[in-house]
Each structure stands twice: as structure tokens, then as C-alpha cells.
């Protein structure tokens, strides 16, 4: 009986020790997960998509697509440019006067605008040196 009591006490001590070890180990693993969960790759994705928007608007301005679109009052070439973008990439472009009056707009076919998007702006002149700006919103499909 005495020996049985001794063994029982030892078991309790062992169990407390083990529980303590498991709790410590669990806390440390949890801390590791918490740390890892704070890292994100979203910022890089947003930066990539933003840079693509900047490049797109630069190309459209330098090759005079935006100017021609305003002067001919047709967004067809802008639409073609958007449709030719990579499949996973969505975007729309609006062209406004310097007083923010909408002149033209186009959106890539098969895309629906999402809340999480980046936007870029490019100014240009058309017609009799009137100032316009094009705004491009971009997001991943």
C-alpha cells in the first residue's frame, strides 16, 4: 500500500512535468506561427501590378495612343491594349479632361472591377494642346 502511494505521487509529479513541457513547447510553436503569420507577399504583388499600370500608361502615352484616342474620340486602341494584357491581369483606363470630365473609358474584356486594386495616372496633351489625364486601375483576376 505504501509502495502504491509512492508510485501514485510520482505519477502525478511526472504528469505535471509533462504538461508543463507540452505547454512551453506549445507556446513556443504558437509564437513561431504568430511571427510567420505577420509576413506577407501582398505588398510585392501590389507593387508589381502598380508597376505594370505605370508601364502601360507610359507606353500608351509615348506611342501616342492616348492622344489619338482623344482626337478620334474612340477608345478602340486602348481596349485592344487592355485585352492584350496577360490573362491573370485585369484593368480599366479612363481618360478625363484637366477639369475631370470623362472623355473615354475602356475595361479589359472578361474582368469585373475588384475593391483591391491599384491606380496610376498619366497626363498628356491632345488636340490644340489641351491637357488630359488617363487613370488606370489594375487588379489580379
Amino acid at each position, binding site marked *: 500500500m505504501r509502495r502504491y502511494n509512492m508510485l501514485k505521487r510520482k505519477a502525478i509529479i511526472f504528469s505535471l512535468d509533462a504538461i508543463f513541457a507540452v505547454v512551453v513547447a506549445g507556446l513556443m510553436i504558437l509564437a513561431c506561427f504568430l511571427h510567420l503569420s505577420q509576413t506577407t507577399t501582398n505588398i510585392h504583388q501590389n507593387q508589381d501590378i502598380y508597376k505594370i499600370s505605370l508601364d502601360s500608361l507610359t507606353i500608351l502615352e509615348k506611342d501616342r495612343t492616348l492622344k489619338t484616342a482623344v482626337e478620334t474620340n474612340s477608345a478602340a486602341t486602348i481596349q485592344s491594349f487592355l485585352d492584350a494584357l496577360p490573362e491573370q491581369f485585369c484593368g480599366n483606363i479612363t481618360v478625363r479632361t484637366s477639369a475631370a470630365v470623362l472623355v473615354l473609358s475602356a475595361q479589359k474584356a472578361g474582368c469585373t472591377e475588384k475593391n483591391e486594386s491599384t491606380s496610376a495616372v498619366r497626363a498628356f*496633351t491632345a488636340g490644340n494642346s489641351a491637357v488630359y489625364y488617363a*487613370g488606370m486601375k489594375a487588379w489580379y483576376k
Partner: protein
Amino acid sequence: MNKMRNKKGILFTVTTIFLLLAVFLLTSAYLTRNKELQRMATLSLAGDRLSYIEDDIADNIYPELLSLNLESIARASDVTIIFNHSNLISSRDHRQLMLDYETFIEETYSTLNNIDIDLEGFNNSFSISPYDSTFIIDSDAIYVYTGNPTNISGITLTIDVSELNTSDGSPGSTGSVNVEVNINHAGGEFSESADLDPAVANGPFYVEFEDGTEVEVNFGSYNGQEGVLRIRASGVRANIPHLELRYDSLPEGVVIKGGNISLASVLENITKDSEIIIAEE
């Protein structure tokens, strides 16, 4: 035997704690590094964005708004700079066009990009260094002032108008700067040249048209300044397919400059100040 087991247990516990601690420190280091990379990526993007905005504002804006294109800068015995200009006409207010663009950039565009933009010295003029020349385009007139007119060695102009001429005239030679003026009009071509003194108020090269309008080119002293080139299209639309300025060759390269741009991103605490370089040799 029991002592041995206890020692092994302690060793096992300590090793496990160290391993867990190592994993924790590793993740912590990874997190710190990740945050640092994000900060660097953000700064890098901010820099790219400022460069993009600078390019957007300044690139080709002077030729677009002033209807003036630089054709070439060539260096031989002289330095020759050739421009062409379209739409020299009183109804085109170059000063207002530049002012409207400046207002748009400093207000609407600045707000759209969430960045403070300031354009300084942005107007209907630009400078040509090292010759200290200032080129001004103002509606129906072009003025080229030069700080040291002895550097000017020659000027050649071709001007196109569609009116029918009635009379014309040209100045007599007074000095050594060769000025050649060709005016193409509905009645034919006016082509004259003279060697002029930049310090003298020389008479004009001119062609008058049926309705009393005229094209006039002057070179010499004007409003107390020597060596001023003036081209005026009074009441007519003139295109200038060839405007050639020849200067004595100086060792410094030619730089054609407009105003200055100042960009400040409050969010990223970055500023960028630069000159608008229209062209350089």
C-alpha cells in the same frame, strides 16, 4: 541507474528547449528581415514613382505646348542649333497654355498622385547654355535674347505663309553676323541675307501681304539689349520649318533647359528636385 536516467531526462529537456528557442529565434529573424525587405521595396517603389511622375510632367511638354521642336545640335567650326516651329499666330496664347498646365499639375495632378508638386520658372521660355540665350515664344512672336551676342555667328530662317505678298524689304549690312531669311508665300519666295551688327538697331526683313498683315524678322539692338532676334507674324499664321542659330564653338556642351520641378512625397518622406532638360548635346 535512476541518476543516469535523471541526467538523460534533463539533457533531453534542455536540448528540446534550445531547439524550440532556435526555431523561435529563426522565425523572429525571418520576420525582421521580411519587414526590412518590405520597407526597402516600398522605398524603391516610391523612388520609381517619383521618377515616373517627373517623366510624365516634363517629358516633351515644352515642344507640345510651345509647338517647337529641336531638330538638331551640331558641332563643327560653329555650334548649330536647328528648331522648327508651327502655328506662330496671335490666337495661340503660349503663356496661358503653360500657365494652365502648371495649374493642372500643381493642383489636380498633385492631388491624384498624393504628392506635393511645384513647378518653378515654368513658362513660355527656355534657356540655351553656355550661350546665355533665352528663347521666348509669345503668341505671334518669337524672341531670342543672348547675354553675350558676340557668340552669335549666324542665323538662317525659313518661314511659310499662305498669303499673297504686296511688298517686301531687307536691311543693309552693318556688321558680321550673317542673317539669312527665306519667306515662302503665295506669290513666290522672299530670300534675302545681310551681315548685321548685333549692337545696332538694324532695320527689318519683312514681307507685307494684301490685307495689311506682315511677317517681320529683326536682329540687333532691341529695348537696350544687343543681339536680339525677333520674328513676328502680324495677323497671319506662320510656320517656321527651319530656325537655325549658329554660335561660336565653346568647349561646354549645349544644354537647353526649361524650369525646375520639385516633388515631395509626405507619405514616404522623400523629395526630388530637378531641372527640366529639354535637350542636351
